[in-house]
C-alpha cells in the first residue's frame, strides 16, 4: 500500500503552458496530537490557475502506515481564467510513540520547486477514548453536534406484546451523504418495521436539532431477559478542523473534506413476562393483543354440492401474522376443504394492527337447513392482564336440492392443483356373481397337495423314459425285459391240435425265454448249454431238472408225434408255464 501510494505520486510531473502560472501547495493534518491507537488524516492541497495540477512527491514516512483515502478535485473557470484545486488525502496510522515530523513535500513545476512546511505530529501512549472512527461520544450530550439515542416504550412486556423501539438521530450540522443505519440485534423478538420515518425539529438545551426517528415494533417470542443491542449510524459530516489554508466559511464549505463518524446507542434490557397460567383457556394458541372476530358466508342459500365460502376474520391490534386459525368444528353434512389465510396489516400510529382472514370452502352434501355454529377464539389482553374469548354469531345456511351436475372447481381456490371437488363417487354395481367367503385358494391344503402332483408325475415319467430309452438302444436289456412277455405270448398262441406242433412251440418258447434271459443265441441252444448256463445263473437243481424234463418231453413228442395225443401235451404246457414263472421269479430275486 505504502509503496503503491508512492509509486502513484512520485515522479509524475505534468508540464503545462508555463506562462503567468502560479500554484500553491499546502499540507495539513487534522489532528497533530494523537494516541497510538488513533489515526490522523494528512491532506495535501495544490491549487493554481492551471487546468492540470501536477502531483506532489511525498517523502518516506517510516513512523507511519500510510493509506491513501482518495483525492478530490475542483475546477472553476471565471472570466476565462481557470483555477483548480486538488486535495490528496492520506490516512496516517502511527507505528510508535513519540514526536515525529512529516517532512516538507516538494513539487517541481515550471522550473520552480514548491515546498510545504514540515508538520509536527505527537503520538502519545493510548488514551482511553472511543474507537478511532468515532471521535464523538455516542450518548446524548447537549452541545454535541450530532448524536443518536435508542429507546423503547416499555421495558417490561408479555410474550407477543408489542414493544416499540425508537431510534432517534439528532443533528445540528449538515450531512455530506446519507447516513447508514444499522439496526441493533433483535434476537428473541419478532421484528416488524414501522414506516415511515419521522423528521422534526427539537430544541434541546437551547440548541435546535433536526431529528430523524425510526421505529420498529418488537414482539418477544419467549419469556426471559433480553438485551437489544447497540444500533449504529455511520455518517459523513463536515469537518471543522481549522488546518486548511482556506480558513474561511466559503472555502470551508467548498473544499473541506467530510469526516466519517460512527454513532452508537446504549443497549437496552427488556424483561419479557410469561403469560399468566391462571385462567388460560384450553384452546388458547398464543394470540396477544386486542381483537374482534366475525364470520360471514358468501351466500345464504345454495344448492347441494355447490360450494360456499366461509370467511372468518379476526381483526385488532397485535401481532397479526401469528394469529392461529380458530377451531372450526367438524361440520356434519359438509365436505370441508383447505383453509386459505390472508393477512392485512396496517401500522397506523406505529401500532401493528390489521386483520387475518381464514377462508374455508364448504360443500354441502345434502339439502336441508344447516347452522354453522359460533366460531370462537381466545386471546390475552395485556392491558387488562386477562384472557378473553370472542365468538362469532351462528350462521344459517339453506341448502336446496342440487339440480344440475356439480361443477368442477376452478383451481383458484386450491393453489396446489385441481381437486375433484364437485365430482361424486361412481354409481353402484347392479349385478354380481357371489362366491362363498372362504380363504384364498392358495391357502387350501388340497390345492397345495395338488401342486405337488405334477412333480411326482414328472419323476415317474423320467424314470420310465430312462427305461424306454434303454429298451430302444440296449438289445440284451430289451431281450431280458421282454423275455417273459414273449414266452407267455408264444404259449398262449398255441391253437393247433397237432401234438408235434404244440410240443415244438412249447420247447421254442422255453428255449427262447432262457436265451433272452441269459443273453444267448436261441438257435444253438442245446440241453447241455442250458444246463451249464442256468446252473451258472444260480438256478437250483430241481428247477433245472424240470426245465430239461420239459424240453426232453417236447423233443420226444416232436420226433414221435403218433404216440401222443393232444391231451398228453396239456400237462406239459402247464408245466412249461409254471417253470417259466418260477424262473422269472428266481431271476428277479437274483437280480436284486
Amino acid at each position: 500500500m505504502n509503496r503503491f501510494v508512492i509509486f502513484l505520486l512520485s515522479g509524475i510531473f505534468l508540464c503545462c503552458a508555463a506562462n503567468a502560472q502560479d500554484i500553491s501547495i499546502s499540507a495539513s493534518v487534522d489532528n497533530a496530537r494523537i494516541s497510538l491507537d488513533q489515526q490522523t488524516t494528512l491532506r495535501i492541497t495544490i491549487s493554481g490557475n492551471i487546468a492540470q495540477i501536477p502531483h506532489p512527491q511525498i517523502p518516506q514516512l517510516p513512523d507511519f502506515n500510510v493509506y491513501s483515502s482518495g483525492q478530490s478535485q475542483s475546477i472553476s473557470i471565471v472570466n476565462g481564467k481557470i483555477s483548480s484545486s486538488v486535495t490528496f488525502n492520506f490516512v496516517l496510522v502511527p507505528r510508535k510513540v513519540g514526536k515525529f515530523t512529516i517532512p516538507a513535500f516538494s513539487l517541481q513545476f515550471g522550473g520552480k520547486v514548491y515546498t510545504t512546511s514540515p508538520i509536527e505530529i505527537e503520538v502519545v501512549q493510548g488514551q482511553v477514548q472511543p474507537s478511532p472512527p468515532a471521535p464523538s461520544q455516542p450518548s446524548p450530550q447537549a452541545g454535541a453536534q450530532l448524536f443518536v439515542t435508542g429507546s423503547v416504550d416499555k421495558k417490561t412486556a408479555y410474550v407477543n406484546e408489542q414493544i416499540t423501539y425508537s431510534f432517534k438521530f439528532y443533528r445540528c450540522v449538515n450531512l455530506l451523504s446519507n447516513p447508514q443505519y444499522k439496526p441493533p440485534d433483535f434476537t428473541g423478538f419478532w421484528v416488524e418495521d414501522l414506516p415511515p420515518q419521522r423528521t422534526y425539529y427539537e430544541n434541546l438545551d437551547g440548541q435546535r436539532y433536526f431529528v430523524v426517528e425510526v421505529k420498529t415494533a418488537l414482539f418477544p417470542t419467549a419469556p426471559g431477559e433480553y438485551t437489544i443491542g447497540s444500533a449504529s449510524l455511520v455518517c459523513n459530516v463536515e469537518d471543522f478542523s481549522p488546518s486548511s489554508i482556506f480558513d474561511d466559511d466559503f472555502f470551508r464549505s467548498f473544499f473541506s473534506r467530510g469526516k466519517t463518524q460512527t454513532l452508537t446507542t446504549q443497549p437496552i434490557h427488556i424483561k419479557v413476562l410469561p403469560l399468566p397460567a391462571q385462567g388460560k383457556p384450553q384452546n388458547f394458541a398464543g394470540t396477544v393483543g386486542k381483537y374482534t372476530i366475525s364470520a360471514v358466508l358468501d351466500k345464504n342459500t345454495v344448492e347441494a354440492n355447490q360450494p360456499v365460502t366461509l370467511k372468518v376474520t379476526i381483526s385488532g391490534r397485535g401481532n397479526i401474522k401469528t394469529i392461529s386459525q380458530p377451531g372450526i368444528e367438524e361440520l356434519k353434512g359438509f365436505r370441508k376443504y383447505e383453509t386459505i389465510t390472508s393477512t392485512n396489516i396496517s401500522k397506523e400510529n406505529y401500532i401493528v394492527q390489521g386483520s387475518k382472514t381464514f377462508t374455508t370452502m364448504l360443500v354441502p352434501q345434502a339439502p336441508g337447513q344447516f347452522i354453522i355454529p359460533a366460531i370462537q377464539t381466545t386471546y390475552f389482553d395485556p392491558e387488562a392482564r386477562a384472557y378473553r374469548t370472542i365468538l362469532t354469531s351462528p350462521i344459517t345456511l339453506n341448502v336446496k336440492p342440487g339440480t344440475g351436475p356439480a361443477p368442477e372447481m376452478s383451481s383458484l381456490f386450491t393453489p396446489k392443483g385441481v381437486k375433484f371437488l364437485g365430482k361424486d363417487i361412481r354409481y353402484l354395481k347392479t349385478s354380481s356373481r357371489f362366491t362363498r367367503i372362504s380363504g384364498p385358494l392358495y391357502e387350501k391344503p388340497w390345492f397345495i397337495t395338488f401342486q405337488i402332483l405334477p412333480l411326482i408325475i414328472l419323476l415317474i415319467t423320467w424314470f420310465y423314459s430312462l427305461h424306454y430309452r434303454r429298451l430302444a438302444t440296449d438289445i440284451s436289456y430289451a431281450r431280458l425285459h421282454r423275455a417273459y412277455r414273449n414266452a407267455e405270448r408264444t404259449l398262449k398262441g398255441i391253437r393247433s391240435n397237432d401234438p408235434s406242433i404244440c410240443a415244438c412251440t412249447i420247447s421254442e418258447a422255453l428255449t427262447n425265454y432262457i436265451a433272452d434271459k441269459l443273453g444267448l443265441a436261441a438257435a444253438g441252444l442245446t440241453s447241455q448249454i442250458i444246463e451249464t448256463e442256468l446252473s451258472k445263473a444260480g438256478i437250483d437243481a430241481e428247477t433245472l431238472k424240470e426245465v430239461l424234463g420239459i424240453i426232453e418231453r417236447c423233443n420226444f413228442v416232436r420226433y414221435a408225434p403218433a404216440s401222443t395225443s393232444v391231451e398228453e401235451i396239456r400237462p406239459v404246457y402247464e408245466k412249461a408255464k409254471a417253470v417259466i414263472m418260477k424262473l422269472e421269479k428266481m431271476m428277479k430275486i437274483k437280480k436284486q
Partner: protein
Amino acid sequence: MKKVIPATLFVLLISLACAQTPQEIFLQANRQYEAGAYEGAISAYENLIRQGWESASLYYNLGNAYFKSGKTGLAILNYERAKILNPRDEDIKFNLEYARASAIQEEEKAKNPIREFFTGIYNLLSVEELTIVFTLLYFSLILAVCISFFFKSGILRLLKTALGILVAVSGLWWAAKIHNVSQPYAIVVKPDCSIRSGPGMEYTAGYLIPEGKKVLILRVKDSWYEVGLKEEGLKGWTEVDKLEKIRNY
C-alpha cells in the same frame, strides 16, 4: 370336508327358508341405496357378507353406501376389499382414490409414468386369477417336459423355454401378490385415531392419523395394535377398535 357339507347344507336350508337368493338381497339393498336409505342398504349388504357371500360388487356397493353416510374409513376398507377381488375395475379404483382424497386430504403426488405402468400390469389380475393362471402354466410346463423325455423336436424345446419363462414370471408376480395381500393391512375406521408410544392410555399420544388411512399391523398386545405407516416412517400403538383389517378371513 365333513364339516363343510353340513355347513353348506345349513346355509342352503336357511336360504331356502328365507326364499331369498343373494342376488335378491343384493338388488333389494341397491333399491334402498337408490332411495337414500343408506343405513338400510348397509345392513343388507353386511348381512349378505355375514351369511358368507362375497363379491367385488358387493364390497363396492357397501363402500358406496358407507361413503354416502359419511363413514369414509369403512368406505375405504370395503373399496380395498373389492379391489383385492377385482383389481382391474375402474369404478373401484376411482371411488377408492376419491374417498382417500376426501378423507385424508393429502397432497396429490406427482405421477410417475413408469411406476403407473407397472402398477397397472400388477393390478391386471387378482390373486385368485393369478393362482389359476400360474397353476395352468406350471402344469403345462410339466406336461411339456414329460413329453420331451420321449420325443425330441425344436418346437417342443421352444415351447418348454417359453413356458419356463412364463412360469417364472407368473410365479414371481403371484408370490408378490400373495405377500402383498397377506400383509396385515388395516384401515383406520374411526375419526382421529391417536397413535401412542405404547399399548395403554397412559402413554403419550404422538400423532393423529386421519380416518381412512392404510396402516400395517405389526404386533398385537391385549386390545392394542402396534401399527406402522410405511410412507411416513412412523410407528406406534392404537386401540383395536380404531382399525379394521382389510383381510377379513
